[in-house]
């Protein structure tokens, strides 16, 4: 991607307020993706500024409930990134993570939470360019979705929906 391309930055029609409001939390494994994000920085690959990184030792440490917690309480997007499968620093941590996150991803929309707000990916410490691409695309995706409404009820929005279950 190039810096001159208008599409590479956040949509122009967005108000400054929404731009300011978007917060994406990134859970990055220390060995690969955190390094990849560092590499992207060292190479001065420009990225949107919405991402806030939490450093974890391994995606195997990633309990999907961290993602649930983030999205339920209104973080606008969650990005999890680790070592490529078979390159895990701990041999197999990302294999566990892959299953857990894949199942979680399929589960999220059932509860009414947009699955597009969550992404997991694999980026190695040397893939600065790939990291730039991931962050840029995901940030754009979240900007398109806008701020996460979370799950809070707006006032007066009580039992409007009846159960069609029994």
């Amino acid at each position, binding site marked *: 991607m190039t810096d001159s391309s208008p599409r590479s930055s956040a949509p122009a029609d967005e108000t400054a307020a929404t*731009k*300011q409001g978007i*917060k994406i*939390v990134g859970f990055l494994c*220390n060995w690969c993706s*955190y*390094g990849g*994000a*560092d590499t*992207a*920085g*060292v190479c*001065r*690959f*420009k*990225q*949107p*500024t919405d*991402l*806030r*990184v*939490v*450093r*974890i*030792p*391994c995606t*195997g*440490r*990633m*309990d999907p409930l*961290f993602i649930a*917690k*983030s999205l339920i*309480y*209104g*973080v606008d997007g969650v990005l999890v990134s680790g070592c490529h499968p*078979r*390159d*895990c*620093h*701990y*041999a*197999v*941590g990302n294999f*566990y*993570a892959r299953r*857990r996150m894949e199942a979680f991803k399929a589960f999220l929309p059932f509860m009414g939470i947009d699955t597009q707000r969550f992404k997991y990916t694999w980026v190695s410490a040397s893939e600065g360019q790939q990291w*730039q691409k991931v962050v840029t695309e995901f940030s754009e995706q979240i900007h398109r979705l806008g701020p996460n409404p979370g799950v809070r009820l707006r006032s007066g929005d009580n039992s409007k929906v009846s159960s069609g279950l029994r």
Partner: protein
Amino acid sequence: MRIGVFVCNCGTNIAGTVDTAKVASEALAFADVVYATNYMYTCSEPGQQEIQRAIGEYGLQGVVVAACSPRMHEPTFRRAVEKAGLNKYMFEMANIREHVSWIGNDREANTRKAVDLVRMAVGKLRFNQPLFSSKMPVNKRLLVIGGGVAGIQAALDCADGGVDVVMVERKQYIGGKMAQLDKTFPTIDCSSCILGPKMVDVSQKENITLYAASEIESISGYIGNFTVEIRKKTTYVNWDACTGCGACMEKCPAKKAEDYFNEGLGTARAINIPFPQAIPKKAVIDAQFCRQLNGKKCGVCAKICPVKAIDFEMKDTIVTEKVGAIIAATGYDLFDHSVYGEYGAGRLPDVITGIQYERILSASGPYGGHIRRPSDGKEPTEIVFISCVGSRDQSVGRPYCSGVCCMYIAKQAILTRDHLPESNSYVFYMDIRAPGKNYDEFVRRAQEEYGVQYIRGRVGKIYQRGDRMVVQGADTLLGVQVEVEADLVVLATGVESSSGAGELAEKLRISYDQYGFYMESHPKLRPVETNTAGVYLAGACQGPKDIPSSVAQGSAAASKVQSLFAHDMIETNPQVALVNERNCIACGKCIQVCPFGAIQWKELRGGIKKAEVLPSVCQGCGVCNATCPPKAVQLQHATDNQILAEVNELCA
């Protein structure tokens, strides 16, 4: 908690696009932050002194530095706060350079993000706990898995240094692939002449215990304290008695046994010592071909053996060894070229592999060192070498370069000319990779002094015509199709990971790449270490390598082991999992998922079971923490509360 925040300008690296003064002043408004400032170069000597001064002056109990990546300077700052009397884990870093100032030019947005990152770091720090390393003794014995040249080098280096070494080799002899080679590039010295003495050394060193014809059954424990079970495979010969006299081989009536050492070019006896210099020089019965073991009446060897070493009732036995470090030197295998239909799919008898050609060239080989072709024993005059057979070919799943083939083809072509001065050699190649010392000169000699014809291009087809073969290929430099009528074709089959490498990696709990080669800790800076502490790599198990590199790695791994063994005790990393027994429900899920076997059962009074982490084995990945349903096991320094605190700062 009294927290100090230090925001680094990093010259203009950070201050150029982040308002560091504003970050510091906003940080000062956070709960628990009692001091915040920005500084030109926080990692500099005066910068560190500023942190230490503030710790003293403000009674700081925790420090946040907002600067570069923690992968860069976390150790620096940890040392700095430790010097000022804080526990080094009462420190957090906010990465506002690689993750902020260097990736965006919007000063306002960058500053906002930097403030958020500092807030998250402060949030996490509130839950930090001082952590302390513990010490445990080191068992100064080494296990070397694999008795090729890399393993031999490692074993001898360590044994010379006074380390007790246990060597396990799954074949009945040590020496590995190098023992099968005739000469070595680029010096053309005799492989067995340089390897032989080392093999003898292995057998004669008192502090080396050799288990040949043995495999690793299981490995448990951790750095400094591994327990290894070794399966000694049935040889049907009592090696304690066997003198290697070879009388049994001479009389054995089963003469059509597979000759593995000669790569199937000849035949062996069912009871066999594969080559005269074999170490250990002990006979082994091949159960597949032995008449006695296949229900026929025989037992000739048992009758002839002067020391009564033959034991047809022998079974596998398991021995247990305790070691403090492990070197994996399991070597490589060669690509099976039968997947290439264009090269005859393994059906043309005179299309052979490079290693078979080594055996043909070898004076101790099946043809006594005379170059003949396998089909009819005729001396070849036109010989074609084809490089990159199973290397650099995505279509067969081998996209990597095997690194050694260009060189051994050149060597074999030179030797061919030495043996058969009238012969012509042709080499079909893609590129010539000869980056070692004197390597390129060597290849040039083959071309210029020995008249080997190098043709840049792939071979499209080989087929039989009369008693010769037609090799059709392209010369991409001339842009023409070429055809060579050859008596013998040698395929430079590529290097692939040793069979069973994956299973062994799982026993060792180390990772391996998609081709089965073991993963080093860091491709540049930790090339012989693995991510499992106490397990090191040597030779081609880590990736294709030639002899000098393998030997260098063997020595490198040995030096790693010796530096480990220079300590009587080792310090453990305290960033490991810890079980809160009160919350543990003994479901055992952590034990089930731990990639390192670092969690075990512990029994309390009354038979109540709880999980227990072995801090010296735990590598700190946190899979257990993510898995534990009541979160009784917490990864220190990345606890649920710490991660939640960071998330909470963003939810607020």
